[in-house]
């Protein structure tokens, strides 16, 4: 191998890349711009100091103590912004997209809910009240969250209400009467009667001096509290959404940069440049290796410039292994470089190759998790994405940046990316058109 020729080939590619201002802007500035934009969105979503409040509207057609308690409890929830409106207006607001969901509390909700609380089990003839949740179908994930939060507030409010001293005493009295009428074994009747009588006495004695029988209501609440913690690289290290978005956009645009290099090779063939290159005493492997090297350098520069910007401006940090990060970055760049060679090898003309390979890149970055995390995909697609190199690149960069994982976390992504690189290189060697007629 001639080192002089190899260095000249690589240098020429870099000179050409840097001389094309548009290519440089696309390679460096565009991923930074898009990464910053997407990062600003995802970063806000992950900031737990100021949780994103979901806006809902409640139409209270009941106006009972229970319905008012539900609304009051929901308004105190840090995850919700609750407004009140009539039923028609609530529906209109959802339709317009002004709020994520509207909750319609029907007439007699409080009374029915209280009855159903004790006697609404399977086989019961007690009618459960229907709480309507009208939601924006484009925001189904938030609607699911609202349902969960609402369940908590309804349960708390209904429980508080039905276990006031007066209610509980009445329920105990109803129970005693039903036991007396039943054909139960006398011993069991006596034991159950003693228990309910004790409950009745407890509420009468404790509730007599307090307004509204508060003590019993106060006894019932959610049996747990939730402590949320972001699992990042360490305690009190907040999630930085820019780390993921810059990884994703960096990979996307280094693939585009390599794609352009492949297209450039096809244009060189059209211009007769490969005749001149092939007429020189240099091996075909040197020609491809030099192109792979220059493409790797350009790709690596793209990725490092993107991450460098994110580090300076958005405080992205390599919280995990620096060596691991560099290994993944180099392997990712090699994968992208050989992808560019593959485009040159299988592409017939620059025009068709550009169209097809652009589509391939977009599909790869889409299903590889560069745009949105792969966990939002269906299960089958999540499993399928392991055959997409972008998935490994994103996982590897995420692992070594915001997840703060050690070098071992970079091994599998690095090996996978090198494997893809070898595969692309092998296909290039077998499919490249060497003869220049």
């Amino acid at each position, binding site marked *: 191998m*001639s080192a*002089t*020729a190899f*260095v*000249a*080939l690589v*240098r*020429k590619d870099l*000179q*050409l890349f840097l*001389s*094309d201002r548009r290519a440089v802007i696309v390679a460096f500035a565009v991923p930074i711009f898009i990464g910053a934009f997407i990062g600003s969105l995802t970063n806000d979503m992950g900031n737990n100091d100021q949780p994103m409040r979901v806006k809902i509207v409640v139409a209270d057609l009941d106006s009972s103590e229970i319905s008012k308690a539900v609304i009051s409890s929901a308004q105190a929830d840090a995850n919700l912004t609750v407004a009140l409106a009539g039923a028609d207006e609530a529906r209109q607001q959802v339709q317009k997209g002004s709020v994520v969901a509207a909750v319609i509390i029907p007439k007699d909700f409080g009374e029915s809910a209280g009855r159903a609380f004790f006697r609404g089990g399977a086989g019961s003839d007690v009618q459960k009240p229907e709480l309507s949740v009208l939601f924006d179908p484009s925001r189904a994930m938030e609607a699911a969250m609202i349902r969960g939060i609402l369940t908590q507030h309804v349960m708390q409010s209904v429980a508080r209400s039905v276990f006031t001293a007066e209610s509980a005493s009445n329920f105990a009295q109803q129970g005693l009467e039903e036991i007396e009428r039943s054909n139960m074994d006398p011993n069991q009747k006596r034991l159950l009667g003693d228990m309910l009588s004790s409950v009745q006495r407890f509420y009468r004695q404790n509730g007599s001096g307090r307004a509204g029988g508060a003590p019993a209501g106060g006894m019932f609440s959610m049996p747990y509290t939730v402590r949320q913690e972001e699992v990042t690289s360490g305690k009190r290290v907040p999630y930085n959404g820019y780390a993921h978005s810059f990884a994703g956009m960096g990979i996307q645009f280094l693939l585009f940069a390599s794609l352009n290099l492949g297209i450039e090779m096809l244009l060189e063939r059209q*211009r*007769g*440049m490969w*005749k*001149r*290159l*092939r*007429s*020189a*005493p*240099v*091996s*075909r492997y040197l020609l491809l290796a030099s192109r792979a090297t220059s493409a790797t350098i350009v790709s690596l520069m793209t990725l490092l410039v993107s991450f460098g910007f994110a580090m300076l401006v958005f405080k992205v940090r390599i919280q995990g292994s620096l060596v691991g990060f560099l290994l993944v970055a180099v392997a990712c760049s090699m994968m992208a470089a050989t992808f560019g060679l593959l485009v040159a090898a299988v592409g017939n003309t620059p025009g068709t190759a550009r169209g097809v390979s652009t589509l391939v890149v977009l599909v790869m970055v889409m299903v590889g998790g560069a745009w949105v995390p792969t966990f939002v995909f269906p299960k089958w697609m999540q499993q399928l994405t392991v055959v997409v190199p972008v998935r490994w690149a994103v996982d590897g960069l995420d692992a070594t940046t915001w997840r703060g994982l050690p070098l071992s976390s970079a091994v599998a992504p690095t090996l996978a990316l090198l494997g893809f690189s070898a595969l692309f290189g092998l296909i290039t060697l077998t499919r490249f058109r060497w*003869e*220049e*007629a």
Partner: protein
Amino acid sequence: MLEVRNLRKAFGSLVAVDDVSFVVSPGKMTGLLGPNGAGKTTTVSMIAGLIAPERGQVLVGGQPLSGDTDANKRKIGLVPQDLALYDELTARDNLRFFGALYDISGAALETAMTSALTLVGLADRARDRVKTFSGGMKRRLNLAAGLLHDPDILLLDEPTVGVDPQSRNAIFDNLEELKKRGKALLYTTHYMEEAERLADRIVVIDRGKVVADDTLAGLHAAVSPDRPGASVSLETVFLTLTGRSLRD
């Protein structure tokens, strides 16, 4: 210097070159003429090592060419029909790159670049980007790139396509100079007057086969045996040998 022996190449069922043989001697120019699709470019491509022949040999200084990295390829310079130059680079950067492909570097490369640029009259534009050059200047730089490693054999594939008469004459002068330096030149063209002016020997190829290989005088004599010494143009000779039917 350059000997082509029984070359054959087919693309599928199309036999592009069939049993082609000729010789190009030092200090001489051989004109390789033929209608469109006759097999000229395929022949030049096989000589330059761009296409592997199915049969036959290309001998350079008596040695057969073998493989991409054969050292004998240094003795061959190719001036392709296309302007194989990087527009975004300067003339010097283009030549520096092409010189490095032949392992030339340092002072030797500087000398070679200066010499080649001076020969083609572009020394004063060496630091300008090629995209600022006229068509004729690009053609001359294309020639300089083929000469940079001082090859013994120069393959010129229609090197004057699309240039004005001034640039064409400048290129002719360059080629005359190269002949004087002892280079062996193989020149393909569709312009008969160029071959008449420059070529010492003419090889006419048609449908992949050599149909004539002689000096200009010899071709005249072969075409008009009854009128020795009569003034017959090369175009007439060419049409007599290859016929008047369209080949596109």
